[in-house]
């Protein structure tokens, strides 16, 4: 197996793909958005429960590849308990990490595994699909 592939499909990604965390509908969500990639058919629902400026809970459901599913799963873990401003900053850093602009140094260690996506530019959309949906959910909420 080549090193690019090892780097992309690290065990933590395979684990979150096989057993996604927070994989449920959030009944008391305050905002929700759908992320859909019409090119490949991947689709995810993201639910957020905001308590003031804090993301009190986050969940997702949907289907797609290992990269998109693991990314959604780890994202819900990473944003729980963070403030909206912190989550928006995480979004920017994650985007930079997978598109290779910066190292995403401020990201939690676990999310660094997505650096492997850089070697496969076509998969960047997979990694960022749920993040964009999450951001859309935040934007909807704050626009209200």
């Amino acid at each position, binding site marked *: *197996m080549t090193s690019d*592939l090892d780097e992309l*499909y690290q065990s933590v990604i395979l684990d979150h793909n096989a057993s996604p965390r927070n994989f449920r509908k959030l009944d008391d969500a305050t905002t929700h958005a759908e992320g859909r990639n019409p090119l*490949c*058919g*991947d689709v995810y629902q993201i639910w957020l429960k905001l308590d003031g400026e804090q993301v009190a809970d986050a969940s997702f459901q949907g*289907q797609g590849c*290992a*990269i998109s599913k693991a990314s959604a799963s780890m994202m819900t873990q990473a944003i729980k308990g963070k403030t909206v401003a912190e989550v928006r900053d995480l979004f920017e850093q994650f985007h930079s990490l997978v598109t290779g602009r910066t190292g995403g140094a401020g990201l939690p260690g676990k999310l660094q595994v997505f650096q492997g996506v850089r070697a496969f530019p076509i*998969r960047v959309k997979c990694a960022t699909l749920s993040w964009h949906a999450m951001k859309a959910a935040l934007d909807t909420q704050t626009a209200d």
Partner: protein
Amino acid sequence: MAPVTVIPPEELRGRTAPVWDVRKVRADFPILSRIVRGRPLVYLDNAATAQKPAAVIEAIDRYYRTGNANVHRGVHTLSEEATAAYERARELAAVFLGAASPSEIIFTAGTTASLNLVAQSYGGSVLRPGDEILVTEMEHHSNLVPWQLVAERTGATVRAIPVMESGGLDLGAFERLLGARTRIVAVAHASNVIGAINPVNAIAEMAHQVGAVVVVDGAQSAPHLRVNLVAIDCDFFACSGHKLYGPNGIGILYGKRALLDAMPPWQGGGGMIREVQIERSTWAAPPERFEAGTPPIAEAVGLGAALEYLMRWDWEALVGYEQALIAEASRKLQEVPGLRVLGEGADRVSVLSISMDRVHPHDAGTVLDTLGIAVRAGHHCAQPLMRRFGVTATLRASFGAYNTPEEVEALIAGMHEVRRVFQ
């Protein structure tokens, strides 16, 4: 131009199948020597687009270097030469597809444009409220959405012939769907997802009995089968240059002359008129009526070179070779644990789709890419067929004239690697 002979099947019985010299063919395609991610390229995405032989690349290069000019009405030598080359490509297309006359061949931007032309021009002028357009569940979106658009405009309805688990069309259901309201039957000659070959001769015969017109999407059949339009007796047939080892940006629309004569233009502009006044105009005869604006001239030159190249092939040998290749690939893929080949029961061109337990096709595609193997993952612009088979996406491998048994082995080894990564 060398005449093309189609050998009737009964004459082939008892004869030894001719041998396809794949090494010789590979040498004609410069891109096949490419290294991808450190491995020799294994190109199995031919249903998306085929690679180009040197003859095509050189013909386009030569045209731009020595012959570039606009066609029709130019009084200078270069324009005359470009016009002759463009019209020669039309003649070659007519011969290649077995059309009755070059005037039945319209050049478009591709299969999608060809099908939109038929839907808008023919469909738009004949469809009335309550009329029915029959498609199949296996259509590429390009032979479905244009019909939805014209149905919405005219009050017609789009209905689908179901696909069976085997991958074949349910012809019994087709017979029941056919009726006095059926005006158009639009079917793929071969599926771009599962490769299934539809019996277009029989479909045309049945449709004609109720007075319906038959539109065949030949994008996936023309590169793999010896198409003869007079024998199929369809009314329209569409295919793309780039899947026929030619350039992209050019497609073919065949239409029976009597139908084309009665159709209004699709797009207006230069080259498609007889006389223009401020308030109204009259139209040129087909095919010019449907070729508004400067046509894809270099692309036609390239397509002509591709067709000349293809007509030097022994198609009996090619079809036998590709059929053996796809049968071998299908058999060995099904030995990989957790792997399913969709629509396995149908006769097919050398295109197949795989679904794997617990592995998304995109992930499998990425693993294969690291091994230098190019396949396609996704819904292949055929979402109704995905729904039919209960999947959201598949991994598609599609073989062409230059693929080898060793490349089939590489694909199988790649799928075992996918299993290992996602075990």
